[in-house]
């Protein structure tokens, strides 16, 4: 059974066509990177897969179910981290996790487990407003992992983090990959992130998939790494393009 199936999905915002007919299929346990510059349509595509936006046309199925008919069921099996979520600054890490755990009917123990998993033990009594950028991203990941998600969506989880914090987060995700129970869809514009974590890479630009597959299959003598491949495919560098404002 496919975990995610996207068929010819389109989405526009006023005069901006954010997603222009994307189709893809993701198998169970796969770690997939949606790679593309800012404004490529990655976030819009992921938010449609998360059931937070409705496509203008096309179809999205999660474990063969649709968001329209099975929202309640699907919310229980996915975990997600949005691009910029600010948790309530007056709550501690543990209180925030307890709150989100209660939405899944989970006990206190699970909140403590994800605290340990994301290395936030010595910050569990700190107010989230006092956390560093890396710690906030780890908290966002901890919240996403609370319900043992079968499908995990992470939207640019390491953007703005220093190399050390980024490495910390990668290590947590690698552990998850080794366990093999979770399907991951990760959006990023960092080549190294996609290379180091994911076995399936989908390159998106201007709302369309321009190439996809395993990294080794995508590289050749003209493209020794993803950066070169992206330049060869689009004629531009991955991190040069300004973000399209989405409303």
């Amino acid at each position, binding site marked *: 059974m496919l975990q995610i199936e996207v068929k010819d999905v389109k989405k526009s915002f006023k005069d901006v066509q954010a997603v222009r007919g994307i189709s893809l299929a993701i198998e169970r346990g796969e770690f997939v990177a949606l790679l593309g510059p800012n404004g490529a349509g990655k976030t819009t595509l992921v938010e449609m897969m998360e059931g*937070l936006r409705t496509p203008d046309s096309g179809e999205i199925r999660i474990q063969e179910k649709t968001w329209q008919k099975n929202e309640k069921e699907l919310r229980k099996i996915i975990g997600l981290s*949005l691009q910029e979520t*600010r948790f309530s600054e*007056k709550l501690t890490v543990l209180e925030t996790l307890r709150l989100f755990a*209660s*939405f899944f009917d989970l006990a206190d123990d699970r909140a403590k487990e994800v605290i340990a998993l994301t290395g936030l033990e010595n910050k569990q009594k700190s107010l989230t407003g006092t956390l560093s950028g890396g710690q906030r991203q780890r908290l966002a990941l901890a919240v996403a992992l609370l319900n043992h998600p079968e499908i995990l969506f992470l939207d640019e989880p390491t953007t703005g983090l220093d190399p050390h914090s980024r490495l910390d987060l990668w290590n947590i995700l690698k552990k998850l990959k080794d366990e093999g129970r979770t399907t991951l869809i990760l959006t990023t514009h960092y080549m190294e992130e996609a290379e180091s974590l994911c076995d399936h890479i989908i390159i998106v630009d201007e709302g369309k998939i321009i190439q996809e597959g395993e990294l080794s299959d995508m590289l050749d003598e003209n493209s020794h790494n993803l950066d070169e491949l992206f330049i060869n495919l689009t004629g531009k560098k991955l991190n040069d393009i300004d973000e399209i404002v989405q409303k």
Partner: protein
Amino acid sequence: MKSFKNNQLFQLTFTQFLETIREPEVLFWGMLFPVLISIGLGFAFTQQSEAKFQVMVVEQNQTKIDTLLSVYAHPSRIQGKPAETWKVKDEILGNTEFNFIRSDWRSAIVSLKRGEADLIVGDTLGRLYYHFDPHNSQAQLVYMKLSALLQSPSGVTSNTDEAEIKPLTLKGVRYIDFLIPGLIAFGLMSSILWGISYTIIERRSQKLLRRMVATPMKKSNFLIALMFVRILMNFVEALILFFFAWLIFGIQIQGNIGALLVLFLAGNIAFTGIAVLISCHTSKTEVGTGWINAVQMPMMILSGVFFSYHNFPEWSIGIIRALPLTALTDGFRSIFNEGGGWIEILFPSAVLSVFGVACFLIGLRRFKWF
């Protein structure tokens, strides 16, 4: 076994409560500030203080005033200028002090414009003329007191043989009795509009609402928790204000306490509905602030919180009475000061509740979670 602590409604309510009490500004503006306002205004309007009036004297010839001042007044300095002060004792209405400052016409007018003086006394061929703005009630009062004093300079007598002043000592007639129910109603409105509307808009702008609805959280639980905590806080805030008003000014509730609680709840329903309607769509806190002020400011001015709305033109009274804050304030006052009960609050409570529910439902239909 499932613990009550893991219940999402409990967690939503508990965390909302924690967030509220961890905000020091909330405690100041919600609890301490109304108490300080009531103490300040209460003392300002209930203490029997000496009334002081400044009178500019512009004379070309000697008048009756000169003779009287030489007998009853003593030299003093007012606003750095030489003056003559005439103190009049009155045990019932309080003492009055007139400060007469001699000046030319031009300086007297400037003093009047600046609000430094209340009235100008001038003369033409020895006859006295009083110059003041006839629409200024303070100036009218000075004129009446001063003219009466000049008629009977040995002392202003409040009582005559035909009529007598009997000061009212009934409960509920002081300004503070008028003020406290108004402040409770105003506090309730203000705390709900800021506590619910602003919180919703802020969380929407932080994408926290979006993050929450991406879980199996029941949306109704989120709103219930927000409303419950706000109503609880309003109750505590009103109790604190009432406690201090009772302790310092001896305020009492003369009417039915059950009816007061029902009206209090109806007020919460009305303003919660308005708060949800205001915050149903926007994710910009600046826009939200504008909406909150647009709703709150007119009611704060018109609904008779601090002063009676009967001072407004007659044609506007019907409109003012239709405002939710007016209905709530009037209802509170009838219970606090007039011994009102169920009959007095039945209609306003029903109207407030229906209005609140209608606003809530419209807001919910248009509600944007992300």
